[in-house]
Every structure is written in C-alpha cells, then in structure tokens.
C-alpha cells in the first residue's frame, strides 16, 4: 500500500465527490490532500508544486479538461510521467476506459465505491507501480 504520508491530488468538478474521496482516503489512513476542480487546475497544481505528488485520483467527466486529457498530459511530461494515476468514473464507459488504459492509467474506480473497494484499488495500483 502507498505510504500514509503520500501526497494525494484529488481532481473533480463536484466538491461533494472530492469530499467523498478524501473521506474514504482518510479512513484508509491518508491525510495529505490537495484538491483541484478540473484537469486544468489539476495540471497547474501538479506541475507547479515543489513537492511531488505520490498519487492522483481524478474524475473522468470534467469541464475544461477531462480526466483522460489530464492523464495524457501527465504521461507526456518528463518529470511527472510516472505519477500513479487513478480515474474515477460514474459508469462503465468501455471504450473510454480502454483509451485510458492505452494512455497509461494505473487503475480506475467505478462510482459508487466504498472505502474498502477504494482501498483494494489503491493496493492494486501500488503493486503495479512497484512503489
């Protein structure tokens, strides 16, 4: 599992969802969160931060810049490309998820999710990225 001190970037245009993700992550043991309301803000936060984020959890459908486009931007950046990235989706959009897998997403979570299901996804992700 990721270290409890991992710095997590949570990206979602709905503040309720950001709170739900943070609540679940807190229950898992994390405490260092930064929020962004869409992919544009997410990128600005990720790229300008002096501290490195250990994990990004991003919604899929967002205005200005979708989670997928945000992911592609992260994977194209030399410094940030290996940042663990999880996408959150409200429904099973198969073609989109495949595109995300091809773009290098580490895992995805389908809403609704419990703390336990998120924990499982985080453990899977950590195992895959080898951190």
């Amino acid at each position, binding site marked *: 599992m990721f270290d409890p001190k991992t710095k997590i970037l949570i990206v979602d245009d709905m503040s309720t969802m950001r709170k739900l993700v943070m609540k679940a992550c807190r229950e898992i043991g994390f405490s260092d969160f930064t929020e962004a309301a869409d992919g544009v803000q997410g990128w600005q936060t990720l790229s300008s931060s002096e501290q490195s984020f250990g994990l990004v959890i991003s919604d899929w459908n967002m205005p200005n810049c979708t989670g997928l486009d945000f992911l592609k931007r992260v994977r194209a950046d030399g410094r940030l490309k290996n940042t663990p990235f999880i996408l959150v989706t409200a429904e*099973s959009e198969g073609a989109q998820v495949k595109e995300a897998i091809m773009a290098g997403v580490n895992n995805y979570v389908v809403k609704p*999710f419990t703390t336990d299901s998120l924990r499982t996804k985080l453990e899977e992700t950590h195992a895959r990225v080898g951190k």
Partner: protein
Amino acid sequence: MSQFKCTQEKEKHIIKIPASFTAEFAAAFQGESQAWLLLPAEVHVLDFDGVLVVDQATYAPVLQFSRLLRSSGKQFRSINMSKTILNQIKAHGLKDAFQPLEPGSAPAAAAPAPGKMDVRFINPFLNSVASVFKTQAQTTLRPGKPFLRNEKTTIDIGIIGLISLNSTQFKGNIGLCFPTQVFLNVYERMLGEKHSEITQEIEDAVAELLNIIYGAAKTELNKDFGFDLQPALPTVLRGEKLEMRMQNRNPIIVLPFEADVGAFHVEIATEPMTHKRSA
C-alpha cells in the same frame, strides 16, 4: 501495436479475430487479454467473421480468458463462427470455452409502455438507488410499493435531481426527489457535515447521486434490454412544493423509499419516440 482490432458496441467489447487465427496470434491474445480483463465491459465477444483457420495453439489463451471473465461475473461469447470452425470447436470439446452464439438468439426487448409499471425497466432503478445509498451514504433503504402519480397524489418535495432519458425507443425524465430535511440528513450521513439549509454544494450532491444512480441503471438496461439509453447531465431544482410533469400527461411512476434518514422517492416518466433516433 495491438494485433486485434477491437470495438465497443453498447456494453460489449468486441474483439475481431484474424482470418488465420494461428499459433503466432496465441501469445498476442494472451498478452492483450490482460488489458481486456481490466475493461468495464460486461460482455466480451470474439468475432469470427471471415475466420478460416483456428489453430489449436489458440485454445489455451482463449480458454483462460473465458474462465477469468466468468469468474469475475462477466460474460464471454463468440459470434459469426463458420459451420466448419464451429464443428471443430465442438469436436475438441470446447463449446463451453468459446460460447458460440448460434442462430436463434433472443430478440431485443420492447420499449417500456408509458405510465406502465414495467418491472424490467423499474427494477434496475430500484436496485441502483438501493446500492448507491448503501455504498455512498451508508443507508439501508426500504423500497415501498411503486404507484402511479395522479392528481390526488401529494408528496413533499424540496429538491429534485432531474435527468432526461433519451434512447432510440423512448424519451422521458427521471427525478430523484427529497423533502429538504431528508436530503440534509442524507448529506450528513454521506459526509458527516450537518447543515440547516440547502447550499450550492448540497445541490451538487443531489446531482452527483443521481448521476451515479442513472449510470448504474443505464448500464444494466442497455446491456440486458438494449434500450440504448444515452449519457445525460443532471440538473437540480430547489423550492417548495415542486412537481414533475410530462407534456403528454402520461402517468408518472413513483418509486417510494423509506430509511432512517427519512422518506423520499424517485419519479419516472416516459413516452415512446415518435421518430426513431438513428443509433
């Protein structure tokens, strides 16, 4: 570069098998199927249209993929197999592994009649609402008996999350309707925050709940009945004595729910499409 051309059709992931499905493709299938297993598609289909050769070396990776899918509750099928290939598969005792879809499979379901309590249509919403509230709001719901709203029906509604239903067969609306205090209780259950009035953020929570509920129900309805429901963005209405009404005045189905946070309901209104939208 993928060795297999894949497409998405509704909730199916379709994998086109090459005309000569030989040993050289077995390793590629084995490797690429690891990624396919991660996909959310509930049904994975091997399309054998135009396939002339299926080498025995491909049996093992296909069998493994089939088993892994079924162990995770997903479906696996093969379609468009020629008679020759089908007989070969059967002769090797692999009909169960390949699950070929033979002629005479089930026809698509008819659209729900407006104002009729079609359980095929209602049950996915009942299940989805119960599941979302259990998972996201730690609230166990007790569904009441669905009924048709009429002029005498009076229900206290302070906030509605509304989504338009749009498919090739019908259109309509679905509303997630709460008395104000009940949704404040739900919000407190979800996030541990107590509020005395509805704020913009709390309105967003109604929209998000409905988004998740609709997404899950839509997936089931499209997969099982081919309703071809499209993604939609929810809107939120807030006020006193709100009421949902369709222009054609078809009866509206009410799905009532009770819980320790209070009572609320879902309203569903549909009417057939007069001009079919092309898919």
